[in-house]
């Protein structure tokens, strides 16, 4: 790990918060009924493994989108991101205020890996090129070796020169995980990464995913509606409750953790 020397200098009890959110709200108005996600306080420490469990429509995706800087919070008391121990926290709310979308894109490119429910692969790139996409953008070196090693772990080495269309859904998800991890991000966000797979394959790939993240010491946030086997992997669950506001106009989900 790059930060290992610095990690020695910092006492283990010093928790470095990769995400620090306070009073972050996202409201979506719709005909008749609206929806609101409220995060009074959320702190995610570097190296933590977080699970976000809940049925669809409860606001999981809204939270993940905000954490990946692709959805602007309606209000935010504080929204800080600290991808490196050695760096000062970055004020994401300020970036949003100034519409610095490309800056947010640069942060995402360097520090965030994203695994989506299905697809998300570039169809005209081979598996190899898909996995090394972020590495190429970041002008990292030794890409071939890194990609092959990762593909080996994911069991897709023999597919490296195929196009995504030639792969099964499960294999594609493995490639998606590979792409999210290839550039050694600080955090990986996965939105129901195994929801489209059969239970056996889903469990297998989820295990592999968490194993890899553990090995690479990457912080992870996984959204899922299946708690059963997530629990076995030792993830910390964010608590949330959904309620109707007193005036009855809004469905509100409150997340804390």
């Amino acid at each position, binding site marked *: 790990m790059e930060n290992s020397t610095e990690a020695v200098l910092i006492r283990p009890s010093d928790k470095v918060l990769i995400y620090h959110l306070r009073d972050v709200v996202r409201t979506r108005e719709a005909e008749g009924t609206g929806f609101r996600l409220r995060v009074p306080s959320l702190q995610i420490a570097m190296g933590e493994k977080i699970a976000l469990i809940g049925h669809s429509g409860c606001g999981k995706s809204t939270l993940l*989108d905000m954490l990946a800087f*692709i959805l602007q919070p309606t209000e935010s008391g504080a929204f800080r991101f600290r991808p490196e121990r050695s760096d000062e926290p970055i004020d994401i709310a300020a970036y949003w205020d100034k519409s610095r979308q490309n800056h947010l*894109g640069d942060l995402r490119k360097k520090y965030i890996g994203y695994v989506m*429910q299905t697809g998300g692969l570039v169809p*005209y*790139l081979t598996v190899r*090129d898909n996995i090394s996409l*972020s590495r*190429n953008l970041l002008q990292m070196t030794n890409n071939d070796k890194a990609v092959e090693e990762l593909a080996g772990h994911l069991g897709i080495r023999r597919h490296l020169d195929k196009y995504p269309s030639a792969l099964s859904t499960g294999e594609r998800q493995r490639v998606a995980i590979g792409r999210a991890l290839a550039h050694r991000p600080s955090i990986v966000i996965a939105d129901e990464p195994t929801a489209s797979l059969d239970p056996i394959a889903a469990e297998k790939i989820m295990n592999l995913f968490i194993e890899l993240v553990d090995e690479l010491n990457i912080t992870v946030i996984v959204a899922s509606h299946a708690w059963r086997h997530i629990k076995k992997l030792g993830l910390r669950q964010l608590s949330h409750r959904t309620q109707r506001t007193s005036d009855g106009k809004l469905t509100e989900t409150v997340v804390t953790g």
Partner: protein
Amino acid sequence: MAHFSEALRLSGKDYLREWRISGSFIVALAAVLGPMMVLFGLKFGVIGGMVVELVQDPRNREVLSLGNGHYNLQWIEKMGQRPDVAFVVPRTRRIAADIQLSNKGSSRIVNVELVPSGPGDPLLQGIGNTPTGADQIVLSELAAEKLMVKTGDTIDGSISRMFRGKAERQHLDLKIIVVAPAAVFNREGAFVSVELLQAVEDFRDGRKVPSLGWDGTESGGERVYPGFRLYAKTIYDVAGLQKDLTAQGLQVRTRADDIAVVQDMDRNLTLVFWVIAVIGLAGFALSLGASLLANVDRKRRELSVLRLVGFHTGDIVLFPVVQSILTGLVGWLLASGIFFGVSFAINKMFADQLEVGQSVCRLLPEHFIVALVLTITAAVIAAMLGGLSASRIEPSEGLREI
């Protein structure tokens, strides 16, 4: 820079991977551009050939005075100084402008008409010399054949008159400085200096010519010429000259009308061509633009995935632009290929009716460049809507199936 080159690489890969769609647009472009290039090549070859012929043949620049006028040397010289006049010499009376030539070695005698000439005579351009003095002539091919003489020979010229009741004849040694081909003058004639023509006229009129030792009466007053040989600087000056001279009350004949016909045809066909070209290219640009826009819509998810991994807005806009330019470039290459094939076939078809080196259908290198620039411009304009649409793609669009 990494973004830019990656975006270039990816849009190229996308373009190649969808070679069926890319190929159709390349062929569609070539189907518009190729025939247009052939059409313009034909216009340029045929009309251009006619214009070149017009420009090259000095006879098209001739302004011929009709009837008998009265022009003094001062007027002639003033005409010669005009910027739109290339050459002018005075003509003497036609009735006094002939001479009897005979080859000293044989008994052949030919009567030829004398044409006034001098330095810069457009008719004699490219064949060497122009006659000066009273002892040089440029003989027409027809006359030279009859006399059986060639360049460098000296022949005898003789003129006769009735003077004070008796016939007189004078002889002159004339050196043939060059024989003018039939293309220049297709009658029996000779180009001579104005000086010689004036001497011949004076002799016929019974006046004396001191420079040649011919006796006669004193010459009377200022010389007046009945006409002139005048050539405009370019064919484009002919109409103006004709207008000026007619305004002075002169009767002249020119080929201005023929020139105007070719020029009008050139102008009108150019206009027609551009109308077709603009309609064709605009139609192509519209269809390409619509397809690029549809492409961006179709690939929204893929493009938003790229936004998600950190590509900037500008990088995404590059996709339709790069692919449109690729279509333009390859389509232009294909159209050029079509042009070469078709023009080769057309020129072969007409080969019998053409002189060596002439072609019915041809384009200059700069025409290809112009076609490329126009095509790329149309392609970039076509990509604008797609680019605008691409710039609005949000990274979140790729996350979930809708």
